[in-house]
């Protein structure tokens, strides 16, 4: 049907059009420029420019001044400009095992949590896709609803469950399963729970969007040809849902690596993640050049995953 409409000749009188179309196009171009330039400028000023300032500070030295760092460009006497770039901050981060271990630990926690989100999120998304026409929108709504409620309060809700005097320990003691409360809050376990709990919708929604487009006749054909369900899953469903898996995993992995609130509230001082170190470096120690260098290194680690995510996001919006 679409082919038919595309092949139709233009039904409009052709003779008058060129002049008015040209005029229209000129107005349209002006209009288009305004539409593009306003948000573009906003992002250039408030999103891109700040990164360059962070990069600049990361190459400066700590100084007793306000703001507390040296200037990269100095003017000496006769207008001679000298630029001083200090890589000490990066060397310091590399050599200090605290920073290095914290980066490794953050990546370990975010990779494991991403895998856990995928492990539990995949069957949940698949179950929603396979639900009836009435249940489907309701289930989808049930997944989206926690995503709209406060992130901070969702993390807080687990503090009540996991505390030494919390609901889980109280329940287990009342049931006589344990005598002493198990320490769960302020451990790495609590951080995993927190990340999986708060980031799960980010995994489920792209997976759902991807699975919704799958053609069930492929599964039926495989079954008709004698393929077992597990075989069909690994040969057909899994490869076809790869775009959803990649998009969902990156949506969890990238922000989780820099997470600050969850390791702070659920990990206490016992779980070191780079987002928390960065925040503390900045607010308590006010060593801006080191904090800026920590941020730049984190950005360098995440730049590749962010670009892959952009690539998939772009492809997804073109396909729609």
């Amino acid at each position, binding site marked *: 049907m679409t082919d038919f409409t595309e092949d139709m000749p233009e039904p409009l009188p052709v003779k008058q059009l060129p002049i008015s179309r040209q005029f229209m196009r000129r107005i349209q171009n002006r209009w288009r420029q305004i*539409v593009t330039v306003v948000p573009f400028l906003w992002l250039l000023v408030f999103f891109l420019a700040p990164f360059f300032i962070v990069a600049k500070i990361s190459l400066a030295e700590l100084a007793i001044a306000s703001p507390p760092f040296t200037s990269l460009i100095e003017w000496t006497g006769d207008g001679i400009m000298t630029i001083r770039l200090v890589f000490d901050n990066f060397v310091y981060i590399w050599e200090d095992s605290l920073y290095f271990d914290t980066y490794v630990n953050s990546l370990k926690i975010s990779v494991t949590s991403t895998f856990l989100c995928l492990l539990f999120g995949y069957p949940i998304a698949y179950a929603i896709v396979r639900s009836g026409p009435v249940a489907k929108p309701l289930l989808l709504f049930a997944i989206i609803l926690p995503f709209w409620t406060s992130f901070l309060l969702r993390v807080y809700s687990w503090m009540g469950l996991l505390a030494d005097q919390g609901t889980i320990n109280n329940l287990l003691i009342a049931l006589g399963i344990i005598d002493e409360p198990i320490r769960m809050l302020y451990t790495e376990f609590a951080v995993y729970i927190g990340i999986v709990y708060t980031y799960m919708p980010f995994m489920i929604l792209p997976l759902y969007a991807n699975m919704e487009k799958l053609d069930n006749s492929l599964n039926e054909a495989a079954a008709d040809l004698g393929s077992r369900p597990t075989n069909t899953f690994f040969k057909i469903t899994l490869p076809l849902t790869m775009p959803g898996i990649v998009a969902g995993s990156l949506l969890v992995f990238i922000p989780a690596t820099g997470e600050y609130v969850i390791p702070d509230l659920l990990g206490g001082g016992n779980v070191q993640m780079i987002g928390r170190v960065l925040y503390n470096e900045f607010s308590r120690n006010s060593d801006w050049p080191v904090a800026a260098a920590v941020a730049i290194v984190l950005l360098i680690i995440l730049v590749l995953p962010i670009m892959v995510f952009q690539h998939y996001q772009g492809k997804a919006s073109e396909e729609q």
Partner: protein
Amino acid sequence: MYAKRSRFLTIMLTLGLAFFYIPMILLVIYSFNYSKLVPVWGGWSLRWYKELFQSAEVWSAVSLSLQIAVVNATFATALGTLAGLAMVRFGRFKGRTLFGGMLVAPLVMPEVITGLSLLVFFISLNQLIGWPAERGFATITIAHITFSMAYVAVTIQARLTGVGQTLEEAAADLGAKPFKVLTAITIPQLTPALISGWLLAFTLSLDDLVIASFVTGPGANTLPILIFSRIRLGLRPDINALATIMILVIAICVAIAAIVMFRQQRADLLDRQMAEREES
């Protein structure tokens, strides 16, 4: 896909929903607990709600957060809509890749990086032009607009690609000027996305702790900053009460948004069915 759900999938779905909702339900139940120790039950009471409503600190934080959220949502919707239009309707233009990248990156950028970079930006700007002299309402709002416009743009882009361009082209061919096309066709078509985009930007702003903590100044405490400073030290029954109120408000907002979207989808479907019937 109309194939049946297997038992395994049903079990996973049930466990998943239990995992999502049990912590929230417990949070709400314990807000009515008389006891000062959150997980120790001391009988039903509205004590913590009363305490909450009497706290001037809470009220001023709520008021600041709501003001920021409304201004943010309005500007973010305007800018996000323009950005979405540019990305979907204008084909290739100079700098499109950079523009698209800057629109997608805020969705995944760790908040500590965005917050840190905006703070040093505001401080440098202050040294350069003397503004912003004080950090607070204005700086938080600008920071929020910057990341929420990206979410709005995604919503708008999805809607624009969904409705296609046929009606706009038809109107232009029939002699409507670009501005007329915008007001008579494009904006009405976008209305559901504009509403959900506004609500999304509104809740994102109400929810943000990390970025606001970086770019705020002395005395300007948003609601998440206030909540965070209290729960860092442990469980607080008054925060349970506050959480219950916030969950209620957001549930109502989301329900309204869902109804609007559902109605629009049904109207679209009816239009399409009518059009198909007329064609055949």
